[in-house]
């Protein structure tokens, strides 16, 4: 068949149906959404007080007080905490070598939130910019943008039928004062009890970290400098090093004790939380995390 004839047949088909084609393309629709714009997630809010262990993930939020978009990332993460509650532990990481985290000599942005440990983590996993977050260090430490977290978190915590995925480990943290709890310079003893719930292959490490809430200091938020911004979940120090220590998971239960001497970086020990997590030393993926607020008066 001649090419021109084929084309003519094709053109005739299109030409004769041009109104149908335009009508089809014009059948365009819009979804107008009315408030509320968010939906609740049934049974998403885990209960760590329950006897049955729940899977808990760690979000390492990379942020900076001069990063004007970072509060938006933080707000997304706060929404995640509201949704997934005890399933989520957050550490706000302020690495060195970044314009957005450097402190001023004076003024509302003079607080130095930076730590060498968060810098090492940033460098290890190829930090690319603010705001971003590591989520259980999955995908060998992929940095996600905050808006990408929701879907990923849901997939980590719930199966296809929306049933909670059970954890491989249970981590229990207890905090006790070595001597007089009123004297804050006295060592605080942190005990981490790890109970193995499933058989695990490979090498695993336990890392224990101190974070601090309610630090009031400056923060750019959009175009505005908020002088009394409340910084929460701030990564303050690593109790057993940036990368933690190897643990022997041939035993069903492991207990570790650490002394916490009030480090200089911490403003107020009563606003601090002990965060512990266990990760696969080969894939870097965190398999379980836990947190415990340091409550000195609980020890009295």
């Amino acid at each position, binding site marked *: 068949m001649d*090419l021109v004839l*084929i*084309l003519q047949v*094709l*053109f005739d088909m*299109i*030409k004769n149906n*041009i109104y149908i*084609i*335009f009508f089809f*393309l*014009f059948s*365009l*629709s*819009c*979804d*107008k*959404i009315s*408030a*509320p*714009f*968010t*939906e609740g*997630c049934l049974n*998403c809010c885990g209960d760590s007080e329950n006897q049955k262990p729940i899977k808990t993930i760690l979000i390492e939020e990379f942020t900076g007080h*001069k990063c*004007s978009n970072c509060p*938006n990332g933080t*707000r*997304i993460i706060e*929404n*995640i905490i509201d*949704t997934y509650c005890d399933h989520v532990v957050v550490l706000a990481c302020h690495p060195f070598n970044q*314009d957005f985290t*450097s402190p*001023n000599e004076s003024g509302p*942005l003079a607080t130095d939130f930076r730590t060498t440990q968060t810098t090492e983590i940033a460098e290890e996993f190829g930090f690319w910019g603010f705001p971003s977050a590591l989520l259980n260090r999955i995908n060998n430490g992929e940095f996600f*943008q905050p*808006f*990408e977290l*929701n*879907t990923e978190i*849901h997939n980590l915590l719930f199966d296809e039928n929306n049933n909670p995925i059970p954890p491989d480990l249970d981590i229990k943290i207890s905090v006790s004062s070595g001597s007089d709890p009123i004297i804050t310079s006295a060592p605080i003893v942190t005990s981490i009890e790890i109970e193995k719930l499933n058989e695990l292959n490979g090498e695993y490490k336990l890392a224990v970290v101190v974070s601090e809430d309610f630090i009031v200091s400056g923060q750019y938020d*959009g*175009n505005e400098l908020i002088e009394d911004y409340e910084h929460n979940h701030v990564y303050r120090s690593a109790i057993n090093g940036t990368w933690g220590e190897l643990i022997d998971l041939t035993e069903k239960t492991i207990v570790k004790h650490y002394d916490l001497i009030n480090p200089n970086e911490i403003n107020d020990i009563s606003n601090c939380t002990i965060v512990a997590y266990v990760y696969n030393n080969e894939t870097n993926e965190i398999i379980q995390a836990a947190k415990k607020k340091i409550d000195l008066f609980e020890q009295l």
Partner: protein
Amino acid sequence: MKKLFIFTLTLFFYSNIESQNNLSFSGDLQISGQTFQEDSSIGAEKREPNLNSYLNLYLGYKDYLKIGTRLELYKNPIPGFEEYEGEGIAHKFIQFQKWNLDVTIGNFYDQFGSGVLFRSYFDPNLGVDNSVNGARIKYRLSSGIDLMAIIGKQRNYWEQGEGVIKGFDAQIYLNDYIFKKSETTISLGGSFVTKYQKDNDPFFILPENVGAWSGRMNISKGRWNFESEYAYKINDPSFTNNYIYKNGNSLILSGSYSKKGLGLVLSGKRVDNMNFRSDRDATLQQLNINFLTSLNKQQSYSLATIYPYVTQPNGEIGIQFDCFYKIPKKSSLGGKYGTELNLNFSNCFTINKTNPSDSELIEQPGTLGYESNFLEFGNDKLFQEINIGIKKKINKKLKLHTTYINVFNNDKILKAQKVLEGEEHEKIFSNIFILESEYKIKSRYTVKSEIQHLQTKQHFGNWGMGLIEANLKNFFFSIQDLYNYGNPISPTHYYSITTGFIKNSHRVELRYGKVRAGLFCVGGICREVPASNGFSINITSSF
């Protein structure tokens, strides 16, 4: 699609045997390569040499059938282009044009009106290629009525975006029907575009179909011309607008008057939450469906490009006034050849934004975001620029062009400039003086020089620039030095030597030198360029 493409190619070659005279073949080629050596004085890192190149090939049959493809190759692309790494066929299409009908299947570039709802285009220097892969139908219903419909997915580096876009545009030239004898010509246009993307978010209730419409009008009479376009977009929570549910809108107005030796243009625009992408999670230059016109002068002088304005799709309001006047020849001020004067003024402000309710913050995710009074300006001026240019032909051989530019760039809000360690973004005020001369030795032999100075007390301080360029028939040669002598840490030279050859539609350029880190912008769309030091080669050719 691939099978259809191969089928059509086969038909082409089958046809080729019978009627070679009906075939036409054309194309164009660009090859760019660069080496990168470490240079701590400008913060340049050592990298593997890179190569960016593409080849467009077009095959036409008579005047109504055309197929085309583009092969691309990116080896070790610079930061910001990493996702282009690789090679392959990035663009392919089959186009039929006959009987008032124009059908394209495959990748295509096009736009509705000014592009405020839909514009797909290719700019390899910016790393922009948001071509639509699908189908486009254009149909001239009758004289003066043009219709266009599109459907497809957009290119996202080597993949396609998740969202499907559909659009329809109509353009009507009223004088073909009414006011036939009127000296006033009027045309009206309207567009509708939707995108579809599945809602997989467990937290936000996201609209899967986001629609937008626009209306436009163009009236011209004699030396006067008036253009306007208004666009509206329904709730489109996305990463770029911080997941707010406010509707978006945009208005562009422009009036102009022109006659021999005089041109006046006054334009204004307001943009409110009009970032429109086919993937709500896309960032940077990814998957933009629309294009927001920039209302400020497009600078080409090197120091005038240091503090460019970056279009703010989440909200901006501004004006531009441009005036061109040529003082007539043989007048006392115009001299023997006349004198050209150009004045350009532009500015941009934030738009007014107030809390949608007492309990919600402005731009809080999962809320309406903010309310905005359409006519009220925001509290902050983002950008302002005044350009005054005088161009004078002194004699048959010598031309002079002098320019003064006053720039205010609110980098405290725009945060587009790189800052020194420990420093903060700040408001930048600068004055730029430029003197350009061109001396014609003989036909196709010219020597050009530029002296530029940028004065500012902020950011990296003062700059100077000197350039000498010689065009000797088919060869060109230039030496340039940008000197940041006001740099608060250490004064820095950015020198370069360039040479090359032009023959017909073929051009080869070799360059050695340093490139400052900064923003490269075209029409308000910008990308960051890292500092570099090394050799580069650029070859362009069309056939």
